[in-house]
């Protein structure tokens, strides 16, 4: 026998799982701290790659200056300057990442609470179905 109530709930669950839920459920596999740390890691990798490209672009632009003044450039100072620039960017980006991912994690929790409620309801229906058979 088809159980209409069950189909309704299953459809609701399937719609969520195929839509927004896909991402939410993926996030729900992480603990909050792990999720934030994972995103911080991704951010740092991303900025590092971005900065490498940026330095390459700037370096190539000034390549003539480097060649002509190769002996007089204070490489240590330049290195420190670039490092400070990079670290400052990392700090700003990491703070932003923490704020954004915390909000995102909180929002997915809200959706998942509703999803879990529906799952429990489905479970109840299964239980009653089984007891009916017996």
């Amino acid at each position: 026998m088809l159980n209409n109530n069950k189909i309704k709930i299953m459809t609701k669950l399937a719609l969520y799982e195929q839509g927004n839920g896909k991402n939410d459920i993926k996030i729900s596999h992480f603990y909050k701290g792990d999720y934030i740390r994972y995103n911080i890691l991704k951010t740092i990798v991303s900025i590092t790659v971005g900065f490498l490209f940026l330095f390459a672009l700037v370096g190539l632009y000034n390549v003539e200056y480097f060649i002509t003044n190769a002996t007089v450039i204070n490489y240590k100072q330049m290195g420190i300057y670039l490092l400070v620039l990079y670290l400052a960017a990392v700090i700003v980006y990491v703070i932003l990442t923490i704020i954004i991912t915390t909000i995102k994690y909180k929002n997915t929790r809200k959706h998942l609470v509703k999803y879990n409620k529906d799952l429990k309801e489905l479970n109840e229906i299964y239980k009653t179905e089984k007891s009916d058979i017996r």
Partner: protein
Amino acid sequence: MMDLLVLKEKVKAIYQKYGHIIEPVSKFILAVIVFSMINSTLGYDVRLSKIFVVLLLSLLCAFTPISILILLAAALSIGHIYFVSRVLAVMTIVIMFILYFLLLRFTANLSYIVLAIPILYILKIPYVIPILLGLISTPVSIVPMACGVIVYYLFKIIKTVAGIPSETSIEDTLQYYKYVMDMILGNKELLFTIIIFAVVIIITYLIRRQKIDHAFDFAILTGAVINILAFLIVDLSIDVSGQIIIMIIGTIISSGLVYIIQFFRLNLDYTRVENVQFEDDDYYYYVKAVPKINITAPEINVKRINSRKGSDGAHHLMDLIRDDKGSDEDTK
């Protein structure tokens, strides 16, 4: 106004019913427009400009997420640029990577703006973007907006330097590279455009958040006025006055378009017919979930008032015919 509201509901109902057809078709049309525009502005490589290629790429975009369209548009542009100059192509790729890794990665859901700005620039109505973003988004959208403006000016500069031969010797290539970079970094128009667009986004956003009547209308109007004034000042001061009339007309058309979009804007969680599949122990289910449509159907009230001269000269209400009987709505 009533007719427009009914039209809005009808459009919404059609979308709900045929969303699964409308979406790929509109994506396909959008993709054709985007690729044709790239080909008409940067069409150096004849092989990539062929209509067959455009249609094939568009077909691919119709069934994939919008990010694929952005990626393919970037790839097509770079393909054209590579045909004229390898140095320029590499530069473009590096600049795009920098934009992506440092800025766009964090606002990935708004990345379509990067594509929209150059396209709307070609149509002379880029002013749609800042006003619209102020209305529907948050000031975070300044980031992709800035990227879009940079991409547009990058391509504009590439178009002007594409004729110069670049690959004769290493020294010449370096000079060429420096020349292009100077053009990008020294471009005041680029800088001022980003600043003005950012200001328009912030002000439009702030006004639409106010709890006043017609906040959205005021926001559009203020955004447009600020846009015109700011560009007027900038255009006059950096002497590109040839564009002023186009800019003013473009802003007026843009604000009109934003007004229309704002009117037709559907709920952000708009639903449509969905097909889902799942199974339990006994059955496979193929369910078609159809959203409930609550259209405010045009309630036709036909009041036929026949005036007849009575003995006292008064008018009699002869007929009051309603096509929908028994509804409380009718008596409104």
